[in-house]
C-alpha cells in the first residue's frame, strides 16, 4: 500500500481514538445494538442466530457513520488545515483514501465489542450456533460500513459545515438503505428489480443470512471506489474553482 495513504490512515485512526466524540458514538452504537440484541435476539426459545441483530445494525449505522465521517474533511476545510495538508507532498486521492481507510479501521474496531453478542448466543445455545451466517454478517457489515463511510467522506468533502455533511450523508444513506428497500417491497415488475439491485440493505441481508455472493462483494467494492473517486474529484476542484 502507498506509504503516504497508510500514514494518513494511521493519523486518522489515532485522531479517532483521541477524540471524545468517537467514544460517545461507540457508546451509543453499543447501547442501541444492545437494546435490539436483548429485545429481539437474546430471548429464551428464540432461534440462536445473529442475523436479526446484523439487520438492525445496518439501520443503526445509517445514523452512526455520518457522525464519524462528518469531520473528516469538513473540519479540515473549516479550520484551514487542509491548506497545510495540500502543501506537503501528498496527492488528493491519498488524502481521501487515507482518511477513508482510517475511518474504516476505526469502524472495524467499533465492531469488535459486538463480538460479545456472538459469544453470548454461542454460550446459551450449547455452542451449536452455525458460524457461517455470523462470519458472513461481519463481512457484510465491513463492506456495508465501507460504503457508508465512502458516502460520508464524499459529503464531508462537499462542505465545511460538519452538521450539513452529517445530514447530507444521513439523507443519502437513508435513500439507499430505507427508502429503496421500502419502495421496492411495494412494487413489482422491472422497477422492483432495479430498485432491489441498487438497494444496499437488500444486498447486505444476504451476508447476514450466510450467503456469500460475489455480485454483492463486487457491488460494494466498486460502488465504494466510485464514490471515493467522486470525492477525490471534489477535493481536486478546490484547485481550479
Amino acid at each position, binding site marked *: 500500500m502507498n506509504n503516504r495513504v497508510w500514514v494518513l490512515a494511521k493519523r486518522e485512526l489515532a485522531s479517532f481514538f*483521541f477524540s471524545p466524540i468517537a467514544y460517545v458514538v461507540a457508546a451509543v452504537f453499543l447501547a442501541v445494538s444492545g437494546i435490539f440484541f436483548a429485545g429481539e435476539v*437474546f430471548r429464551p426459545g428464540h432461534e440462536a442466530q445473529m442475523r436479526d441483530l446484523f439487520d438492525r445494525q445496518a439501520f443503526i449505522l445509517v445514523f452512526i457513520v455520518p457522525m464519524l465521517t462528518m469531520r473528516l474533511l469538513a473540519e479540515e476545510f473549516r479550520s484551514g488545515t487542509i491548506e497545510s495538508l495540500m502543501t506537503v507532498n501528498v496527492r488528493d486521492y491519498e488524502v481521501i483514501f487515507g482518511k477513508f481507510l482510517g475511518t474504516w479501521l476505526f469502524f472495524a474496531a467499533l465492531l469488535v465489542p459486538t463480538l460479545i453478542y456472538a459469544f453470548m448466543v454461542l454460550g446459551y*445455545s450449547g455452542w451449536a450456533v452455525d458460524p*457461517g451466517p455470523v462470519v458472513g454478517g461481519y463481512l457484510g457489515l465491513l463492506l456495508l460500513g465501507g460504503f457508508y463511510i465512502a458516502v460520508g467522506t464524499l459529503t464531508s468533502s462537499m462542505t465545511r459545515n460538519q452538521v450539513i455533511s452529517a445530514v447530507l450523508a444521513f439523507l443519502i444513506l437513508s435513500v439507499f438503505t430505507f427508502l429503496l428497500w421500502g419502495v421496492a417491497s411495494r412494487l413489482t415488475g422491472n422497477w422492483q428489480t432495479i430498485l432491489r439491485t441498487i438497494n444496499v440493505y437488500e444486498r447486505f441481508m*444476504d451476508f447476514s443470512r450466510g*450467503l456469500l455472493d460475489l455480485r454483492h462483494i463486487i457491488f460494494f467494492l466498486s460502488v465504494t471506489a466510485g464514490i471515493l473517486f467522486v470525492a477525490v474529484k471534489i477535493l481536486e476542484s478546490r484547485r481550479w474553482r
Partner: protein
Amino acid sequence: MAINHQTNQFRRRLIFGGNVVFSVAIVWTIIVLVNLATERLSPDPTDLTRSGQFSISPRTVNLLKDLPNDITITALFRISDEVDEATRSQAELQKRQIDDLLRRYSTISGKVHYKVLDPIRDNAEKTRLIQTLKETYAGEATKHKEVIDEFKKLDPKILTLMDRERNAFKELAENNEKVNNDRNIVAIYYRFTKNYTDAKTAIDDINELVSGEDVPRYSEAVAIIQKLYENVKNDLLAASEYLTGEGQKIEGLSEQTLASFREKPKQYAELSDLIGKQLMLCVDLPKLELEDIYNQLKQKNARTVIVQVDNTPKSKVLSYSDIWQITPSQTGDISKVDYHFNGEAALSSAILALTAKEKSAAIFIHAGGPDPVKPGYSAMRVSQAPYNALKEKLEEANFVVESWDLLRGSTPPEIPDVTRKVYVVVPSVPQKAQPGAPTVGGYKEAEIAIVEKLITDGNRVMFLVNFQPAIMGSPYPFADLFEKKFGVKLEAEKVVLQGIELNDKVTVPNNQVAVSRYNDHEITRPIQSLVSSFIWASPLTIMETLPEGIGVAPLITITPEMGNYWAENNIYMLLQRRHAQKDDDDTPAPFQIAVAVEDSKTKNKCVIFGNELFATDGMANKVDYFMTPQGIGAQYAFPGNLELLTNVAFWLNDNSNLISVGPRKADVVRIKDISDRGLMTWKVFLWGVWPMGALVAGAVVYLFRRR
C-alpha cells in the same frame, strides 16, 4: 481586463468542470458495466450455513434462468398478536424462510418479482390483488355457468319426479302393511324425499354462492349440483333394480302394483339419462383457481403463496401445508411438532407447471376394467379412480394425464401440444361380469404385443406389477418380457414378507415394506429422507447375464440388514392360515422391489416396480393424524410414494433436472432457558455496563492525554 479575467475564470471552470464530469461519467460507466457483467457471469453464491439452508437445487436454478415470462409471487403471511411466545417465534422463523426463498429466487432471475404481505395490515393491497385476479380469470367459469344454467332447467324435472314418486310410495305404504314394513321401500321413500328437499333448496344455495361474495363460487355451486345429480341417479338406479327384482317378491301386492313397479325404470330412464349427461360434464370441470385463491385470501391468518405469470391468466396457489410439512417431533415429545420446509419443491413445481414450454403426457395403460385415472359412472354408483392421487401429483408436475384401454384401441390417445410421453402399465385383472360368464379384460397376447411394440419403438414405460400367484388366476403377463428385454426376473407369484418375532417361537408375517433408504440413483437421491411403503410387493432379481446394451440399476433393494425379509412362495398357507415361514423354496434377501433399466444403444428407459398398490390412493394418499399443540395435525403416512413415482416420470422423460427436491428438515438451534434474573442481569450489562465501558475508555484516554 475585469471582463477578460471573469471570462478566463469561467472558461477554466468550464474546462476543468467538464473534465471532472467526463471522468466521473467514465468511471461510473465502468462500474455499472462491471456490475452488469458480474450479475450475468457470477457463480452461484456460496452458502455458508452448515445445513445448506440457502442452497438452491440445480433444478430450480435451471428453471429460473430459463423463465419465458416475468413472474410475480405474492406471499401472504400474518402473525397473529394473540399467540404465545413460542408460536410467534416459530411463525417469525417461517416467515423468514419464505421471505429468504423468494429473495433467492429473485436474485437468481430478474424475472421473478415478489411481495410479502400481511393480509390484514395490507388490506388495500389484498383488495387490489383480488381485483387483478378477477380480471385475469374472467373467462374461467364459462363451462361452470353452462352447467348451472342446465341445472336450472333440470331441477324442476327432478322436483316433479321425486315428489310424485315419494307420494306414490307413501300412498302405497299407507294402504299396504307389507309395503309399509318393507325396509327397502321405506329407504326409497326416504331417499326420494331427501332428494326432493335438496333439489328444492339447491337453487337458493347456488344463487347465494354465485352472487353472495366478492368472488362468485361457481365450483362450489357445481359441487352441490354434482352431489345432487349423483344422489338422484344412484337412487333411481337402486330403486329400479329393487322394484324389478326383490320388490316383485313383496307379498300381498296386486298384479297392477307389481306391473307398475316393473314400469318404473322406464319412467326414470329419461331423467336418469339427462342427469348422466350432465354428470359427465361436471366431472370434467376443473376446480376454479380463482375460488381457490379467494378461499385462501379470506382466511384471517392466511399463510399462502400466490404465483402469477405476468400478463397471462395463469396462477397457482400454494397453501401452508404445501410449504411446511408438519410431522410429529422426532424427540418423542407429543406436545411438539417438526416443521419441514418444502418451499423450494412447492414453489418450483408451481412455476414449472405455469411456465413450462413443453408439455408431457403420462398415459396409463390398462386392458379393460375400471379406468385407472378417471372416476366411473357406469355402474350403480360413482367409482373413484384408483390412481387419482398419482394423477393429481403428475398434473402438478406439468404432465397431462390420460388413460388408454388396450381393449378399446390399439393406438395411444391423441393428446395435443404434448412433446413427450411416458406410459404407465397398470395391472388389469380379468373379471367376470357374472358367475359363469366368460372373463373380460386382462392383458392377453394382443395387448402384450402392443406393449412390447411400445418398448421396441423406444417409448418410455413404467410397469406397476401386482402380486399374482397362480392360485389366484393367470400369471403376471409381462414377466417373460422383463426377462427377455431387460434381464429382470420377476417372481409375481411370491410376496415380500417381514417376519416379526413376537417371542422365541412365534413369528408373525408382515406384508408391508417400509423404505427410508434407497439405492443411490438420480431418481431416488433427492428423497432419501422420505418414507415410502409397499404392500404385497413381489421380488425382482437382476439376472447375471443381461441382454446386449442393457444396464439395470436397483432403486430399492431389500437387504438382510433391513430386517428379517424374504419373498414367500407358499401363498396358500399365507392366505388361508395367515402363516408363513422362511424356507428353502422362498427367495431370501437381498432382492429388489424396484429397478431402472437403460439401453445404452437405443437410449431407451424403463422402470419396473414389483408393486402396484403403493401407487394407488389407499397407500399414496394415506393420511396419519396426530396431536399438536394447536390441535389435530395431519401428515401423509408415506410421503415418499408419490415423490418416487413423479421422479420416475421425470427420469423416463429425460427431465432429470426437474426431479424434485425433498423437504428440508428444520435444523434450528434455539437459545436455552435463562432465568428471569439472569436475563435482567444481561440486559443491565448490555444496555448499561458495556456501552459505559466505551465512555470510560474515552475518559481514560482523555485523562491520559491531558497528563
